[in-house]
Structure formats: structure tokens, C-alpha cells
């Protein structure tokens, strides 16, 4: 009995304490003290880097790096926009060309021109007047195929967008929801670039009739539904075609044990859309100086050479050494669809909306 009384008293007491604690409005646990020492990178869940490379940067710069992985690329960006007056970090890495306009429209970034940015290929250095972003890496979103399936069935793998609607590839393709997944959106933009504002709806009507399956995210599509990936084989995935990246085959090799001579999957190079990832200094960054140093580091030779095998993207710097196993199994596309950022900005939301009605409902 008396223990109950004590419990209640303690609970009420605790309540009072917490309430008074919250009305005294502290701005967080001692952030101010470590402000200049810690630099925080906000990124998406796919962020990965070698520990030694990060440690070298910390040693050289004197900053401690904190990484906040905040959902997929779209979610991380949206949350950064909603919290931009009091941001969670100093630098956002991972906003790509498909969503870039959303960051600009909401004044997410402040100007900073990274050291060595003149070494980057000029075609990727956009926003040269305001200098709000720095291109870090690129990748190609392309359809991948399961080599074994096509050999067993004596079928030629598809090569182009046009091939995908042919009857021999009926019920073989799985893709991602364009409104929730960045490869899904990239693939949609690829078809829009290829067939134009008027043609892509017809194309998707045909694709739907040809049995395309749509799932919410890349993880599910690639590692569960696709029959060619290690994860998909285990999960008994039954779709031999998937929307993924040109760099997915090397990942299949690198992570396999023992390593096979050739990749178990191939890339349909006629279905590629180029995706470029940027980093920017957040508008109200608490540690702007540290953020600038961090962006310099993201395009340093060392980090750029470390990227391919960690995030499976191609580094922006042409002089960065790309590991051989990476280029051997997955070269970037030579012919790919592109779309000007202003065209994406103008049409993206409308296209995604009508794609959702057309394909999902």
C-alpha cells in the first residue's frame, strides 16, 4: 500500500520537475559549448564513408564530424526545409537534380564556393551566379536484368525503354513509386525526357498493360522482388527486371563471397537517367565555418576516391582514382537521358501526380 503511495507521489513529483524543466526553455544539451568543434552533416540513409577517411579529416581540420541520417533522400530534404530556421546540422548532402528546385524555392542553402570546385566538370556546376550548391557525385538510374533468367529462358535482355513494353517482357519489371523513391522518380523523368510531355503517359499506359509492378522503395524492389540480386534470391523474388543503378552489378560482385568472375546482373543501357547529387551549406548553419570545411572535404581527392565502393556512385572529380573492380563491372552509361533542372522544377510535381493516378490508382 505505502509503496503505491510513494509511486504516485514520485510520479507526480517527476511530472512537476519535467514540466518546470521544459518551461525554462533550454536550447538543448550544451550545444553552445561544442558549437565550433562539431560539424554536423545531414544526409540520407544511404550515406556511407570509410572511417579512416573521416578520421583524417577530423585530425586535419580539428572538427568532429557528426552524421545525421534522416530517412531517404526526399525525407531528409523535406525535414531540412521544415527545420531550416533552426537546422539540425550545418551541411546537407544528397539532394539530387530531381529535387534540387525544391531546395532552391525554399532558400535552404547559403552561398559558398568550395575550394577546388573549378576542378569539377563544368556541365555539372550549375547555379553559378548564386553558388549555393556543389556537385559531389553522379550515378545512372537504369533497368538491371537477371542474367541467369534470360539465359535459362533463351531470351535477349531488353536494351531500351521501347523494349520494356514488348510482350516478351510481360510481367517481368518491378519499379519504385515515383512519389516516394528517388530511383522511381528518376525512371519516370527518364521516360518523360525520352517521350516528351505528351508521350510519357502513353508509354506508361503500355507499361502498365505489360504488367509493371510498383513497390514503395528501392530496398523492397531490389532486395525482395528482383530475382537477380543476392537479397532477392534469398527472398525468392520473381521479377528479373528492376529499376536500379548502373553501379548495382559491381555491388553484387563486391559483396559476394566468394567473388564471381562476372556480375550476375547486367544493365539495360538504353534506359538510363543521370542523377547528380549535391551538397550545400544550410542557411542558418550554427557552424558555417566548419560546414565550409566539410564541403571542401566532400570534393577532396581522398573522399572522392572513397565514395564509389561505399555509396556506389561515380565521383565528380575526374582525377579521383576509381577502384578497378568498380569500373570493370559497372561502367557509367554513355548514352543517357538528361533533363534541365528548370524543366524538372516546372513539371515534376504535376508529372508525379498524374503518374500516381495513372499507374497506382
Amino acid at each position, binding site marked *: 500500500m505505502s509503496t503505491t503511495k510513494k509511486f504516485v507521489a514520485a510520479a*507526480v513529483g517527476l511530472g512537476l520537475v519535467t514540466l518546470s524543466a521544459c518551461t525554462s526553455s533550454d*536550447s*538543448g544539451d550544451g550545444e553552445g559549448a561544442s558549437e565550433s568543434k562539431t560539424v554536423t552533416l545531414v544526409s540520407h540513409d544511404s550515406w556511407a564513408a570509410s572511417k579512416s577517411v573521416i578520421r583524417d579529416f577530423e585530425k586535419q581540420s580539428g572538427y568532429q564530424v557528426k552524421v545525421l541520417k534522416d530517412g531517404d533522400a526526399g525525407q531528409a530534404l523535406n525535414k531540412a526545409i521544415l527545420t531550416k*530556421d533552426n537546422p539540425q546540422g550545418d551541411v546537407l548532402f544528397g539532394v539530387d537534380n530531381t529535387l534540387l528546385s525544391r531546395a532552391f524555392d525554399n532558400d535552404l542553402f547559403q552561398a559558398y564556393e568550395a575550394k577546388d570546385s573549378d576542378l569539377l566538370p563544368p556541365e555539372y556546376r550549375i547555379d553559378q551566379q548564386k553558388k549555393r550548391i556543389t556537385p559531389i557525385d553522379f550515378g545512372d538510374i537504369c533497368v538491371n536484368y537477371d542474367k541467369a533468367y534470360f539465359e535459362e529462358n533463351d531470351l535477349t535482355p531488353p536494351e531500351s525503354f521501347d523494349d520494356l513494353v514488348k510482350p516478351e517482357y510481360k510481367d517481368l519489371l518491378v519499379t519504385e513509386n515515383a512519389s516516394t523513391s528517388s530511383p522511381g522518380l528518376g525512371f519516370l523523368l527518364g521516360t518523360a525526357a525520352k517521350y516528351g510531355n505528351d508521350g510519357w503517359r502513353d508509354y506508361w499506359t503500355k507499361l502498365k498493360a505489360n504488367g509493371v509492378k510498383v513497390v514503395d522503395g528501392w530496398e523492397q524492389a531490389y532486395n525482395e522482388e528482383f530475382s537477380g540480386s543476392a537479397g532477392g534470391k534469398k527472398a525468392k523474388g520473381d521479377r528479373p527486371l528492376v529499376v536500379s543503378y548502373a553501379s548495382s552489378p559491381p555491388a553484387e560482385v563486391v559483396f559476394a563471397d566468394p567473388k564471381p568472375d562476372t556480375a550476375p546482373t547486367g544493365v539495360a543501357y538504353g534506359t538510363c537517367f543521370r542523377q547528380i547529387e549535391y551538397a550545400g551549406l544550410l542557411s542558418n548553419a550554427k557552424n558555417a565555418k566548419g560546414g565550409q570545411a566539410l564541403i571542401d572535404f566532400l570534393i577532396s581527392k581522398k573522399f572522392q576516391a572513397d565514395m564509389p565502393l561505399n555509396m556506389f556512385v561515380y565521383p565528380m572529380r575526374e582525377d579521383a582514382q576509381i577502384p578497378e573492380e568498380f569500373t570493370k563491372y559497372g561502367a557509367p552509361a554513355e548514352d543517357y537521358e538528361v533533363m534541365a533542372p528548370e524543366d524538372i522544377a516546372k513539371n515534376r510535381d504535376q508529372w508525379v501526380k498524374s503518374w500516381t493516378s495513372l499507374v497506382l490508382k
Partner: protein
Amino acid sequence: MARLGLMALPVAFFAVFFAYPVAAIVARGLKVDGAWQFGRLGEVLAQPDVRHVLWFTTWQAFASTAFTLLIALPGAYVFARFDFRGKQLLRAVITVPFVLPTVVVGTAFLALVGRGGLLDELWGVRLDTTVWAILLAHVFFNYAVVVRTVGGLWSQLDPRQEEAARVLGASRFAAWRKVTLPALGPAVAAAALMVFLFTFTSFGVVQILGGPTFATLEVEIYRQTSEIFDLSTAAVLTMIQFVAVGAILAVHAWTVHRRETALRLVDASVTARRPRGAGQWTLLAAVLGTAALLLVLPLAVLVQRSLDAPGFAYYKALTSGESDVFLVPPIEAVGNSLQYALAATALALLIGGLAAAALTRRDAGRLVRGFDALLMLPLGVSAVTVGFGFLIALDEPPLNLRSSWILVPLAQALVGVPFVVRTMLPVLRAVDVRLREAAAVLGASPWRVWREVDLPMVRRALLIAAGFAFAVSLGEFGATVFIARADNPTLPVAVARLLGRPGELNYGQSMALSTILMVVCAVALLLLERVRTDRTGEF
């Protein structure tokens, strides 16, 4: 005057931590250059996609409610009228699903009917991304609401009234229809409305089991805010849900009011007896079988999946710092969750207790009764909206809480308060007001009256309220997922993130974490069952 003093804190709490953040996020979506864009309302409603979502939300809520009533009403009868061995334990077991986090329920059904799930292995049947998985999970979730609300009253109805009708020549069915059903009606209506409310605003279950095709309003608000970033559509949807939930709650308040009409109630222990005859035994067996299949099997599968690797590998992996999903070993989420939930429980008890005390007197005016209904709103307003509202509203002085740990318990306390009020109110109202008056006349201060008169009588109810507040805080997902910091995940957030990652190890770990969460909730509930009183509100 004293009552106004009691109300001040709860009112301030709801104004600052509920109304203000929700208004802020709605304004962010609907206000352009200082002018409200109410025209958006019509535009959004005209979109076929939005109408599709509204239609799905409504019909699945109706279907879920109908199925739940169909399956749970026989259960309510059996628990009310039959006496059998293990009844006490079983009553606790069927309540476990209700306090389980939606994420765990989703995971459990995924393990049962999803890819590689039990049904898939046995017969190649997969129900995930079909509406059936959602409906099943909703029945699983709300079975206890019906059994407890309806069965609680049923067990206290005097069976002699029905017997009297039969003596007077009524058939068994006529006696039931004319005597029992009218008495039971309001309780059935109240239970149905609660189930409707919970399924209408369903988030975690639909998010996990629905795939890209099915979305309730709540899920669509999440997608529009977090993924599509169409804040004005999200704001409109939030307002629609707000109106719908307000209407449901108003009807609910009305049925509760009607239920308070005098009924001849008797002690539950005298109305239950051993089943007699083949018919009654069959009914009992059927109800128990259904409960086992529907409620126990998914949880059992969940536990089995979490152990589906040699040497507790999934549990061991939880303690490893090698995880690439979190900055900390996932097991730390357990400690975080417990701390957050305890703080949230304390807050909910404080706020809810004060509110219940203020609402106690039966002569409470209309204003106070309105406040009663208002306290229920956080249960039905999009948690996603609350979470985002916290992010954008509570980030500048004098309330700069953005990077403070208190944000998570505050959001969790919002959903805990309604449970505290619902549990405390009936008990507090039952305290004879003359006792308080007598104490006051004898010179006791108001504080002393509360401590010496009220507290001893409501202690058990307070404990039960604490237990429910603790369980719902522990399971809160919709708001927490936005405000929990990446280096301090809670259990449900950790489960959801592990589920979203590829590979067997992550899947196994999410099952293991879900199992831990389920065990914590179940233990809290079983402890409560031991202190249960007869008059403890409807939950």
C-alpha cells in the same frame, strides 16, 4: 474558482503543445503571404486521388468496425456470462494487442501473411498489400475494445430481467431483443465508435501492410508532408480529418451520456456461471479458438521469427555497434524508450489527473464538458501533423525545445492524457461529495482533502491510468518518428527503420525488437490486471 485553477495547467498544456503546433503546420500549408488560401479546400477535394483516399479511409473503417463487432461480440458475451478456468489470464491476453504499438502489429502480420510469412511458407498465400491484411490487423487491434466495453456492462446486467421476460412468455430471442439489447445498445455504439475512430485514423498498420496502393487519410497526410512535400494538400487533409474526428467524438460523447441513464447493475461475479449444454460449450470453444487464431497466432509467429537464427543471433546483433542503420546499437532504443515513456507517463498523469479533477463534479457546466471532448482530440488528430508541428513551432524562444529530449515525452503525453482522463473520471465521480465536504468542514485544506479523501479511493485507478499511459507512450509512432533524434531512436522508430532496410539480419532484428517491445507492454498490462477495479472507464 478552484476548478478554474485546476484547469489552467491542462488548458495551457493543450494550447501550447497541441493547438499551437497543429495550427502552425496548417498555417504553413494554407497561408501564402499572410492570406489564408481556403480556396485550396475545394481544389484539393476535387482531385480524384484525394477522393479515392477519403473513400478508402471511410469504407475500410466501416468494414473494420463491422468485422470487429461480428467477431468480438460473441467474445463479449462469453466473457460476461461464462465462468471458466483461466478467464482472468485470457482477459489480459486479449488486451495485449490493444496496447501494442501499431508498428509491432504491422510487423506481426507481415510475419504471418507477408512474403516468406507463415501462410506463404505453408500454402503460398500472401495477403500483404491487400486490404485483407489491413482488416485482419484492425480486428486484432480492436477486439479488446469491444470485449471490454460491451462485456464489462453485459456482465453487470441483471440476468433475472431477461428471465422474468421469459417467464412472462417471451421467446428467448424476444427476451434478448426487448430486454438485453436496449440496455446494451449504447455500450455497443460507444465501442463501435471507438473502433471506427481508431481504424479511421490508422497509420502504422496501413503504412506497413498497405503498400503503395492503399492509404488512409493519416497515411496520405504523412506522404504529402514527408515525401511529396505538398504542405497545402496535407493541411487540407488534416482539416478534413479534424472535422471527421470531431464528429465521431461528438457522437461518442452523446452515447456515453446516454449510457449514464440508470440501469439496474449487479456485481459481475454473480452473473457468470459455468457453461451448460452442448450449445454453450461450442460457443465457448468457438470464441476461444477464434481468439487463439486471430490474437495469439500473429504474436507467436513474431516471437518465432525473432528466434529463427541459431543462438539468439538476432538478439545478439541488437547489441552490436556495427549497425549501419543507427548511430548506436539498436538495443539502446529500449533504454531510450523506457525513459521517454516514464517521463511521458508522469506528464500525462499530472495533466490528465488535474483535468479529471476539474471535470469531476456532475454540475460541471457546458464549457467544462466541451473541454472533456477536447481532451480526446489528440487521439484522432493526425500524429504526423503533431510531429511536424512540433518541429516547426517549438523551435524558437521562449519555447526552443527542438534539440531537447523533452519533445518526445511531450508528444507521447498528448496521447496518454485521454486515457488517464477516461480512466480516472468515472472513479472520481463515484467519490461521495459529502466526504469531501465533511473533511473541509473539519478544517482540512483542499490539498489535504484531496490527499486524505480522494487519493486513497482513486489510487488503483491512478495506477491503471499510469499503465495505459505508459503503454501508449511506449508505442507512440506517428509523431515520435519525426521528432526522435537519429542518435536517440525509440523502440517503434527503430523497428520501422530496421524493417525498411534490406537483408535477413535487419528483418530478424526488427522482429527481435518488436518481441521485446511486446513483452514490455504485456508485462505492464498483466501487472495492471491484478489491480483492476470494476468501474474504470471504457478502456
